[in-house]
């Protein structure tokens, strides 16, 4: 079981991701924006953050960079969940510290597989 943080301003997506990951046996916390997620991570780091890119305020890229710059969160892996899947967007995400991308619209089953793959990487 892993500790996972889900950050998305879309309630539907948040609920679907939480539902799937909890069913997979993970401990999941959900936040509607990047600032709340950073506060949550500061209180308790997570193994994985699933982050939407386009959010009001702190974007997913900003949040990924903030996680990477925080030594206490060095073990947190990041999956970007986003509709922005052009080459330049992917490059920006990986440069910000993302470990993987899941495109929107998304398949909960595919997300589950990718989460397991990312968590199993050493």
């Amino acid at each position, binding site marked *: 079981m892993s500790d996972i943080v889900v950050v998305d301003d*879309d*309630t*539907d*997506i948040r*609920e*679907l991701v939480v*539902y*799937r990951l909890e*069913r997979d046996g993970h401990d999941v916390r959900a936040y509607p924006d990047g600032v709340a997620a950073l506060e949550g991570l500061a209180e308790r780091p997570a193994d994985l953050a699933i982050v939407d890119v386009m959010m009001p305020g702190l974007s997913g890229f900003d949040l990924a960079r903030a996680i990477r710059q925080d030594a206490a969160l060095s073990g947190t892996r990041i999956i970007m969940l986003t509709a922005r899947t*052009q*080459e330049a967007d992917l490059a920006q995400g990986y440069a910000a510290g993302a470990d993987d991308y899941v495109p*929107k*619209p*998304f*398949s*909960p*089953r*595919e997300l589950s597989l990718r989460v397991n793959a990312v968590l199993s990487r050493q």
Partner: protein
Amino acid sequence: MTRIDASASQLLLFIAVVLLITFTALAALCILALLVIRARRRLLERRRAAQTARLRSDLVAIVDGEEPEASEAAARLVALRGRHWHRADELLVGILPKVRGDAKDRVRAVLRSRGAEERAVAQLGSGRAAERCRGAFALGAMGAEDATSRVIELLADRSPLVRRVAVRSLGMMQDPAAAEPLLQAANKPEAVQRDLVQALIQLGAGAAPVLRARVLHLIAHPDSVDRSAPAAAEALGFIGDVASARILAAAVDGGSTALQLAAAQALGHLDVPAGVPALQRAITSPVSAQLKLAAATSLGRLGAEAAIPELLHAVEDGGPSVSRTAASALLSLGPAGRDALARSSAPYAVEALAVDAMRLAP
């Protein structure tokens, strides 16, 4: 006289007291009414929130639940009536564009079992623009292929909002038959090109022949005013239609300015070298700085080492934007591009290498 004054004073005092009591009572009644209204509203909101929470829980189970949980949730939603079903219908349609695969099929099945497609088609004939928008969006979200022609008709709707929703819905429906009507819509003065290009991209490879034909048409008639050809070229790049590389290269060489620009950008998204010579010519042509920028970016994206001399020339002789973009393209070519920059004493070459060294520094 004094007695009359006293009576009048008493009467006035009496009237004042009556008025005061009346106003106080009215004020109290108003406050009470406000409190009742507020309490009722809170109660309704709480009920609505509780109902939405139950619906959302069923919705999530339908999208991703295991059996029999998913079937049970679907049966509960299908059995709803009146405004309860209306709310469920809104939630189901709203989630469709956010999921794909099995999840999407399950939601679509629930909507179809309640005749949501037929209802959406009926909404298209409504006199209210908002209803027509709802119908068009629902048909797009459900991917109702049978209704493509009905949504295409909305591209000529009297309401600009409905026309815009129709463009987006046709993209979601992914029926290549919508390519030609969407291209025609691009030439209308109020057309939102970004939405149109996005819809054309969503149509996918099936729309590519129509898009190629539109680009070829404008190459053959460069003086005609056609906003659809640049949109077609841009979409071809994002679709990744490799077969259009030579057509796009020809467009860079001989299209209208807007088409040249769109084609140069599109070539950068096609991972084939066929467009490199045209991009090399574009970056040295004096026509437009924007075209040079697009050509430099695409050459960098394509990893075109053959274009190192042209890119270096652009670094040394271009304006700030073109020079910086060309330098960035050279860096993206790897050691060969970096060596070329190192051989140059141009300020933008020195700048690019310095910035790159800072980026690579531990």
